């Protein structure tokens, strides 16, 4: 019997996911090697074995590795949040940045910092900001029946600019010394101690949830009523997606500011390569999102060295044209 077409695509998918899996350590290795100081790997290994301190070891393990790991986690979180939001809103243009989710998280996090709340509550404030912002998109953009693309995007854009205004306001009333570092953080900054265990756990948990629910995600993407008629508990699944996407966005924003378009670009590329089946799309997007942001972070440090570019600037350079292209193509197909 002719099983060749599905067999071939399954084999290709496995190959693509394998390649992406290999790309992650390769990108990490590149990221820790590249920079203003060339790395002597013999020194690094020597220190790792003997414990005798060396500059090379410090640069690689204490400076560059945490940044690369942060970029990996942020990229993976944003890509997964993008996939989930696109299913939730049934729109391939949905993305935490475009719809103002990141903005909400950033504004609330900033507010928590300015009020002087303790470090832990900044993450909580960011989560509340992300989910509150998503909730607003939900309530305001839901027209009759299904999501209208125009309304959804308009609502998201208005919210995003509203958050932007709030952020500008908060920055202008804060002490001038804080402003520059906050601005840098908002545009995507990876200085710091790495992602931390909580974010790794959140990423692992969210990935597991998405993989277990992947067939449900497929059905939900085909339509809410259709999914319900096929036995999916759509209300609880959508709630789960909502919470997961909100937490992932908050985790990314609190670590590295609002980096745009990863959640848009990565799932879009992966849909073209591995297809729309979430059993593959979820994993492929997480791997590519992570690797891509590691490489972007490396570029941000090295392209205009010693100057460092905000990572969000680079992702926006790629994301904005793609978004406009998708918007144009999408409107053409719905107009016809």
């Amino acid at each position, binding site marked *: 019997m002719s099983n060749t*077409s*599905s067999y071939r695509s399954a084999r290709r998918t496995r190959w693509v996911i394998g390649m992406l899996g290999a790309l992650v350590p390769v990108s990490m290795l590149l990221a820790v090697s590249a920079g203003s100081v060339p790395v002597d790997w013999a020194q690094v290994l020597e220190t790792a074995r003997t414990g005798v301190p060396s500059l090379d070891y410090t640069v690689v393990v204490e400076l560059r590795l945490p940044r690369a790991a942060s970029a990996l986690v942020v990229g993976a979180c944003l890509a997964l949040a993008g996939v989930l939001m696109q299913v939730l809103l049934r729109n391939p243009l949905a993305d935490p940045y475009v719809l103002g989710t990141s903005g909400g998280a950033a504004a609330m996090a900033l507010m928590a910092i300015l009020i002087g709340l303790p470090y832990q509550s900044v993450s909580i404030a960011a989560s509340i900001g992300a989910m509150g912002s998503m909730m607003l998109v939900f309530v305001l953009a839901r027209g009759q029946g299904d999501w209208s693309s125009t309304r959804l995007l308009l609502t998201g854009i208005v919210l995003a600019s509203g958050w932007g205004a709030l952020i500008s306001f908060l920055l202008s009333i804060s002490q001038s010394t804080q402003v520059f570092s906050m601005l840098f953080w908002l545009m995507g900054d990876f200085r710091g101690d790495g992602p931390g265990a909580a974010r790794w756990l959140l990423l692992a948990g969210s990935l597991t949830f998405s993989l277990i629910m992947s067939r449900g995600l497929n059905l939900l*993407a*085909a*339509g809410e009523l259709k999914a319900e008629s096929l*036995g*999916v*508990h759509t209300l609880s699944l959508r709630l789960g997606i909502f919470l997961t996407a909100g937490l992932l966005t908050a985790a990314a924003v609190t670590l590295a500011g609002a980096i745009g378009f990863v959640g848009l670009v990565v799932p879009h590329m992966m849909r073209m390569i591995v297809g729309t089946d979430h059993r593959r799309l979820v994993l492929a997007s997480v791997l590519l999102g992570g690797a891509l942001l590691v490489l972007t972070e490396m570029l941000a440090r090295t392209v205009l060295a010693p100057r460092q570019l905000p990572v969000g600037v680079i992702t926006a350079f790629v994301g904005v044209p793609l978004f406009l292209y998708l918007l144009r193509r999408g409107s053409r197909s719905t107009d016809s």
Partner: protein
Amino acid sequence: MSALRTEGLEAGVGKVTACRDLNLVVKPGEVWSVLGRNGVGKSTLLLTLAGLKPLRGGQIQVEGTALGDLSRRERARRLSILFQNPDVIFPTTVFEAVMTGRHPWISGWKGTSANDTLLVREQLTRMGLAGFEARALPTLSGGERRRVDLAALAVQQTTVVLMDEPVNHLDLHYQVQLLQTLLEDWRQAGQAVIMVMHDINLAMRFSDRLLLLYGDGETCQGLVADVATEENLSRLYQHALHRYPAGGHSFFWPL
């Protein structure tokens, strides 16, 4: 035992009441058509029967069990529905789209089996879609998409099949041919079909019984020969219709 039974059913949405005190007994192997003007609540009734809209009164039983007592999964194994105009957003392949119909039968941890694949391919061939497996839905014509939807419905293999305008977008050839083959399959398998139809003559040709929704909750039901009268249908569409005999059949034509 009846495949689907309603007692004193009231269904509607907003100010529209599709039916009031509706008592239906749909037997296995029967084909019913629901007829009515635009906006009388045909689709609402279908969604209510599918358990996707809360009913306003009465009850619905599927194979003797109240619809509300079935888990979602059990319900999806007994009752399937074809929607009127499903929108396509993501470039899902034809094969994946038809495979969604197997969802209620695939247990949580196991993937799709060889049997699922076989069923999907069988229905694709039957719908004239062999070789379309890897095509993305947005690249298909309206009629081709309709056939994909019908194939997905067929692989769900439920006792009760609900269809909202199944031959929407289809060419005349496919309208007749697909209704013929699908309904024959389902009749033989003892599956009961309730479909919302726009074309009276097509409905009469393929149904055993008709359910007329007059609006404001008034209904009329029975064997095609008993219900399809000039008087009833002229009232139903608020337009005079004339009945023309044609061989052993007859057809209606608006005056």
